[in-house]
């Protein structure tokens, strides 16, 4: 009948959800698929047709209220500021110094806004765009158009939950236009914005900024720890938008910007850190000296404890660090300008050092380590009073068991992870009711299934810890190897001590020199089972891919055995004796 006329009514039918409306004789909408008649009647738009102006007034009144329901006007960068603020708070709660939030991160963020021409600069993007859009109505001042928080430069960081003034009505015309596809004012433009050299904020970038601030402050938190805390939910990341103020409505394009459905990956955030630092033109970072947590010696000590290896190995790791020259301040300190696109993966490197030491001591060729274990075992049986000698086999058995359990738990936790927010995001207002209804449905179903689960496993969230394993004697019942000695696998030779094992093999014989980014590849089946286990264990601890650890090990070996690589490339590399 009057389908043409009913075209502008785009809501879904309450009965059948179709958007197919017709007009009844009384001017009410009815659904053409289920014949449900709504209470809504067609707004009379043509004022000439109806002389009664009262109706018009009512209509206008309704529209105004709708606008208010939309919430505040806000910019995408404000959203990210909220996220950063939450993350900084969480870090503070984890014990990181308060300067991180108020000085370092805040400064980085200001610098970012400036560099990306969003604020703190002449003619920021928002203003430029505003001028273009409201050309011809020069009634509003420029400063008004800047994101509200930026005009408030007095405080170190605007508190996210602080009182905010509702947006000035002068923005209405703009907000109406922009909010067609996003809740934020510039969501659409933001996702379209592409400029050369611009680092656009995205959720992983927030973590990169946190990582940079931590590095600047030389906090005792490596990148892998940061990401692990994110994964364990100690630092807001997935669904961080849930904690935005009620009035900041998100939908449409905002969904693609703030709602993420992936965990941050180490490589990705690491790349971003470098990119952001370069983009921000940051000066040389504070020096990483030997007393810093991120110095390989300290990290090695930490990871040796973590994986239950004897403390005596620490001497060896220090040796390797020294010989490879990776303990130097210049090598360790991040300088975005001087060292283009390079920084040290502190945690990965430390772990790689431990792997190298294990290779030096036990060779890890599925053979030598077991025969050395046999020696240690007999020694331990004969000398029960002495300090026990480190038995690699026993260690492997203990580690394998704990590692498998841990990994299984981790996999289950990942499979149970709830991605979907309690506050569902929709693409356009038409979808709103559908999305909310679906959400409600899921919640109901979840309730039903949770009654079937025995004692609802709302196990108290693990309190954040930089250690994932606990080897104290009373917990593990005497399987702690920290105090074991390496006596059995070393022997004195004059003044120095040499390892019983005199062989070594290189993880990578030849490095990839092509333009692809990786320097080597890791084909698991080409390596000994023990090596595979070690690599798996450590890459699980850091939540990184096995190949990136393998690569790091190869790189350390490259520094360690420089000569071998440069002189005799063809010669077998298994002949090198370890000098001590």
């Amino acid at each position, binding site marked *: 009948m009057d389908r043409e006329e009913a075209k502008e009514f785009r809501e879904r039918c309450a009965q059948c959800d179709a958007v197919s409306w017709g007009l009844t004789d009384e001017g009410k909408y009815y659904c053409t698929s289920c014949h449900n008649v709504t209470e809504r009647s067609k707004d009379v738009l043509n004022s000439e047709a109806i002389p009664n102006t009262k109706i018009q007034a009512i209509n206008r009144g309704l529209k105004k209220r709708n606008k208010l329901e939309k919430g505040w006007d806000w910019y995408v960068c404000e959203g990210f500021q909220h996220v950063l603020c939450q993350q900084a708070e969480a870090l503070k709660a984890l014990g990181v110094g308060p300067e991180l939030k108020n000085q370092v991160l805040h400064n980085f963020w200001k610098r970012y806004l400036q560099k990306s021409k969003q604020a703190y600069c002449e003619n920021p993007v928002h203003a430029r765009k505003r001028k273009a859009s409201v050309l011809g109505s020069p009634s509003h001042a420029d400063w008004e158009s800047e994101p509200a928080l930026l005009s408030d430069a007095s405080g170190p960081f605007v508190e996210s939950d602080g009182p905010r003034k509702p947006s000035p009505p002068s923005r209405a015309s703009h907000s109406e236009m922009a909010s067609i596809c996003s809740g934020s004012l510039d969501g659409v433009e933001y996702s379209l914005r592409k400029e050369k050299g611009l680092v656009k904020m995205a959720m992983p970038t927030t973590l990169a900024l946190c990582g940079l601030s931590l590095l600047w402050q030389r906090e005792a938190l490596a990148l892998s720890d940061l990401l692990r805390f994110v994964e364990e939910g100690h630092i807001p990341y997935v669904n961080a938008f849930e904690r935005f103020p009620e009035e900041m409505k998100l939908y449409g394009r905002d969904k693609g910007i703030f709602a993420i459905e992936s965990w941050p990956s180490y490589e990705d955030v690491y790349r971003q850190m470098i990119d952001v630092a370069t983009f921000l033109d940051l000066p040389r970072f504070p020096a990483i000296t030997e007393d810093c947590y991120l110095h390989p010696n300290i990290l090695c000590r930490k990871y040796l404890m973590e994986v239950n290896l004897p403390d005596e190995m620490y001497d060896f790791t220090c040796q390797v660090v020294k010989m490879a020259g990776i303990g130097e301040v210049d090598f360790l300190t991040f300088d975005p300008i001087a060292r283009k696109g390079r920084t040290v993966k502190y945690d990965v490197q430390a772990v790689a050092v431990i792997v190298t030491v294990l290779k030096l001591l036990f060779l890890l060729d599925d053979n030598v380590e077991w025969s050395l274990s046999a020696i240690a075992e007999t020694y331990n049986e004969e000398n029960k009073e002495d300090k026990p000698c480190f038995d690699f086999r026993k260690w492997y058995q203990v580690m394998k068991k704990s590692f498998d359990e841990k990994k299984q738990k981790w996999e289950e936790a990942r499979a149970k992870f709830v991605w979907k927010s309690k506050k569902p995001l929709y693409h356009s207002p038409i979808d709103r009711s559908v999305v909310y209804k679906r959400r409600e449905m899921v919640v109901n179903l*979840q309730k*039903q299934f949770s009654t079937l689960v025995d004692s609802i496993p709302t196990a108290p969230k693990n309190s954040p810890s930089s250690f994932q394993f606990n080897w104290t004697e009373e917990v593990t019942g005497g399987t702690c190897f920290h105090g074991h000695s390496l006596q059995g696998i070393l022997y004195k030779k004059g003044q120095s001590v040499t390892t019983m094992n005199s062989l070594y093999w290189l993880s990578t014989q030849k490095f990839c020199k092509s333009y692809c980014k990786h320097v080597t590849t890791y084909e698991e089946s080409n390596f000994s089972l023990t090596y595979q286990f070690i690599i798996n264990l450590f890459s699980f601890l850091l939540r990184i891919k096995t190949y990136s650890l393998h690569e790091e090990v190869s790189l350390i070996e490259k520094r360690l055995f420089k000569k071998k690589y440069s002189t005799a490339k063809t010669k077998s590399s298994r002949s090198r004796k370890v000098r001590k």
Partner: protein
Amino acid sequence: MSDFSEDLLRPTPEDDPAETSVRPRSGMCLPWLQKQVESVATRGKKEKDFAQTTSACLSFIQEALLKHQWQRAAEFMHSCLQILEDSDSHKRQAAPEIIWKLGSEILYYHPKSSVETFNTFADRMKNIGVMNYLTISLQHALYLLHHGMFDDASRNLSQAETWRYGEKSSSQEALINLVQAYKGLLQYYTWSKKKKELSELDEDDYAYSTASQNMFKHSWKTSVSFSALVQTPGVWDPFVKSYVEMLEFYGDQDGAREVLTNYAYDEKFPSNPNAHVYLYNFLKREKAPREKLISVLKILYQIVPSHTLMLEFHRLLRKSDKEEHHKLGLEVLFGVLDFAGCTKNLTAWQYLAKYLRQILMGSHLAWVQDEWNSRKNWWPGFHFSSFWAKSDWKEDKALAYEKAFVAGILLGKARCDYQQTRTQPSDKHLRQEGASQNQHNQVTATTARGQPCVKCAH
């Protein structure tokens, strides 16, 4: 049913176009296959961890179900429900089915589950995505039947039967028909119960007329429920059977015949031996001419040569006047005995022994040769080995006699392990057995005396 029509209206993914990936709707969960399919579908694009979570979750559920760990399955189910909110609309549309299948399985076995829980679950699932309403209703009804809740199941089906959803209902016509047919099946059940009661009542009883009236009313309703389904191609054995029974009971022979003929001969229907069996039985009850019966069974013979009706078919053929039918009769017997399941069928061997004799007497040696040529390589080992001779002799002497006779004819006495193995212990035995076995003895004797053996005839 009100919501989620967007599932129907918008086949395009609503997420940003970068994630567009056409994925086959897979109801079955084969983790390894799924992974492969996904890597093809995403064309190497990085898959979101959300997808990783859900697929890991699904395989954990699968594992838990296989190990009957219902508790654990329910635990994972709790987080698996988020696939209903997947932003990939293809996956989201496939989700309700997955959730329904897994959820109903868990609720069926879970110790803490009850009929009420199941009902709530089913009712909720019915309203997620209209496309599943009918299937879920049907399965829900079957669940209720399983728990003996006949009336609830029936109510459920009636509700589903009257369900309409705009244009969508037409695409699900087949399902509606199926729902109706199940409804009809339930009605048939009541009907046949009443029929039984009726048969116990005296015809002069006052109650008799009311009861029979009730039955009439029922049958009319039921035939409506069945007729639509029976027209659609498919395998509808239980429905057809009940439908025909009711039609026959009320004397609508033509209707019944039409249904059965259609069911058996319509080419749109999948080949279905039972269709021919039903038709044959019906025609037999109707006392149809032999010619007609033979034509029905001929088709059955082509589909299932080892069917139990084949012996009956053989009898019909034997009685027929046509020579070609006689030849076919032999083929049928050989055909039956080709199957391992029929090797100990005494009647078949009896028939074969008797028929071979009859045919050889009628000097149709060529027929036997025709059949034997393709079997001479394997029948001796398959039927006539000395192993079989021993075991048959131990278990079923009558069978052993028949087989020995057939073996003698087909192989010739000299080359027949079966006969030799048998006769050695049997000579003594036979004498003791006396008159009852005499006939067989004679048969063997005649063979031995030099009736034309197939082998020797070459």
